């Protein structure tokens, strides 16, 4: 009976209840959607970094990443790649000869990072082939092809089929030059990355710097599921204790921090919204207590225990809040699904956000666990907000309240 009375009481003053329900719904929608937006951006950033830069896991010689020392290479990479690919959860592994170099054209020069890859194998761990805006991805077998980022092309004022001269050191420390023809221009969501990363065939670079067959700087590993990163990292570390095995979180700690912060920021943001809404809820429930002073007096007079009256008002507060929360979540789920399919185009500010590695089209997304946490947060806030009006109700003196004093 108490549940029934409380639920019906919520709708006694429909206009007042609807105002607070809509306020809760809109407040939560704002909080949830902005979180989904940030999560979408963050997940896209992680996806972009994994699929264009680091893979899920990288193997290299300890110290290599400090200054890209050419002497620190992994020998016999073919057998390592084969063994790593046999580890459960691994989608693919590929080698990469990574060398810092200088790129020059008639118009200018820039520091670059050359990635010498086997194009056929590299597609297993990298989506470069899907990010070409011009040209193709090592389509034919001609020597000295180079694929560069749009940002670098702009900086060097070069176009497809232009020639680039790269200057680099051999393993013996000699300076060598190589002339490459641009056969592809790519664009990722990170302008920084696009401005300094180029791809060439590993055989071409190996000849230039005198690397032996099977010798490479890095082995990049891609997993079927990012959640398995830690488990597979541990397995590879166990198999190759002399190599440095790092998951993307260690390779890009800033990215890890950003994704972690997004989640925390979302909870803080929604928490602040809920606290603001709590005052609205308190006000509505205080009005309800004031309106129903006669009735509370009657209930106390006929022998309804204050504990039950307290519970009734707490239930009303919870029902009111959860109704708003349910409406807010429904609107959020719908809008997140819709924008998750269509995307939110931020091309107006793309230049700014691309500099941070974010994509200009954001697909909002949100995990189910957030909704569960949110429902719990709303419940807790409602319980806290309900205490003051409920206490006010049971502190009424029956003889005075029943007369409406």
């Amino acid at each position, binding site marked *: 009976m108490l549940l029934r009375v409380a639920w019906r009481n919520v709708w006694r003053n429909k206009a007042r209840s609807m105002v607070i329900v809509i306020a809760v719904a809109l407040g939560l929608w704002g909080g949830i959607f902005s979180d989904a937006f940030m999560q979408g951006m963050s997940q896209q950033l992680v996806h972009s970094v994994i699929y264009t830069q680091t893979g899920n896991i990288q193997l290299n010689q300890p110290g290599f990443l400090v200054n890209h020392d050419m002497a620190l290479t992994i020998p016999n990479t073919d057998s390592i790649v084969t063994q790593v690919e046999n580890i459960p959860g691994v989608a693919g592994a590929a080698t990469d000869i990574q060398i810092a170099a200088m790129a020059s054209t008639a118009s200018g020069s820039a520091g670059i990072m050359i990635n010498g890859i086997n194009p056929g194998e590299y597609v297993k761990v990298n989506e470069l082939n899907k990010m070409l805006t011009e040209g193709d991805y090592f389509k034919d077998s001609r020597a000295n092809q180079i694929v560069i980022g749009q940002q670098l092309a702009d900086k060097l004022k070069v176009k497809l089929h232009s020639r680039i001269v790269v200057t680099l050191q051999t393993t013996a420390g000699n300076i060598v030059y190589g002339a490459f023809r641009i056969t592809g221009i790519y664009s990722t969501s990170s302008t920084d990355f696009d401005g300094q990363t180029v791809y060439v065939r590993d055989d071409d670079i190996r000849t230039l710097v005198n690397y032996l067959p099977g010798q490479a700087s890095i082995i990049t590993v891609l997993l079927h599921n990012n959640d398995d990163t830690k488990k597979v990292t541990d397995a590879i570390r166990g198999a190759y204790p002399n190599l440095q095995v790092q998951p993307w979180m260690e390779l890009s700690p800033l990215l890890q921090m950003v994704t972690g912060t997004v989640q925390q920021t979302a909870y803080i943001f929604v928490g602040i919204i809920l606290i603001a809404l709590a005052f609205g809820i308190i006000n509505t429930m205080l009005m309800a207590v004031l309106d129903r002073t006669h009735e509370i007096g009657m209930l106390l007079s006929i*022998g309804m225990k204050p504990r039950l009256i307290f519970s009734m008002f707490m239930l009303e507060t919870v029902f009111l809040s959860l109704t708003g929360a349910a409406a807010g979540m429904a609107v959020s789920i719908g809008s997140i699904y819709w924008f998750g399919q269509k995307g939110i185009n931020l091309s107006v500010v793309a230049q700014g956000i691309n500099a941070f590695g974010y994509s200009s089209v954001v697909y909002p997304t949100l995990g189910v666990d957030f909704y569960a946490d949110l429902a719990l947060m709303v419940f807790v806030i409602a319980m806290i907000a309900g205490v003051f009006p409920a206490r006010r109700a049971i502190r009424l003196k029956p003889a005075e309240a029943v007369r409406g004093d």
Partner: protein
Amino acid sequence: MPVIDIKGLSKTYNETMVPVHALNGVNLSFEKGEFTAIVGPSGCGKTTLLNMIGGLDYPTSGEVIIGGEDITKMKSAKLVEFRLRNIGFIFQSYNLIPVLTVKENTEFIMELQHRNPTEIKERVQYLLAAMGLSDKMNVRPKYLSGGQQQRVAVARALASKPTFILADEPTANLDSKSTNTLLDLMATLNEKEQVTFIFSTHDQRVMDKAKRIVTLEDGKVISDSKIATSHEHAGV
């Protein structure tokens, strides 16, 4: 043994600069099955007396002994339980729960008493039939006339099987026809179920039905007369 025994009951309100002596040494007792009207001018202490008898307020001094227990000494939590088990209330402005139907309003108090569902169902049907409201069981109070609402309030008061019923100006908002219907119903139930009714009233029609009339003035009982039959006019 009286149902209610009031001894030296006084109540002084100190809410203003000048203390108000609402009750001043009232001594009264009520027997089972009495149909009593407490009358007197406004401010004479009728409502205060009813509040003290009903355990809704504590007196400044004196005792209200009901069923051998002095309720003025009871803690408020115990008083709530005492009211639930022993006292029925009827208010001037009906005070039904607007979100509940007639049936649910009547059931409500029995559910608070944790009565079994079968008993609740049977008693509700009996009381609402007695009140002539069988056809209004599933109607909410706002769709009823004032007289019908007050009859629901009487049914609710009787539902808990109280030792006595306190009614504060129960006919003040009713027209003559509704008042007569209500009073007849209450008189019948008083006869039939031997429920003790205590009214505070200004209404001559209530006084006409009463078997006993207690007159208060300035917080004191100035007359207490029993009438031979309920139809005789009480010459106060």
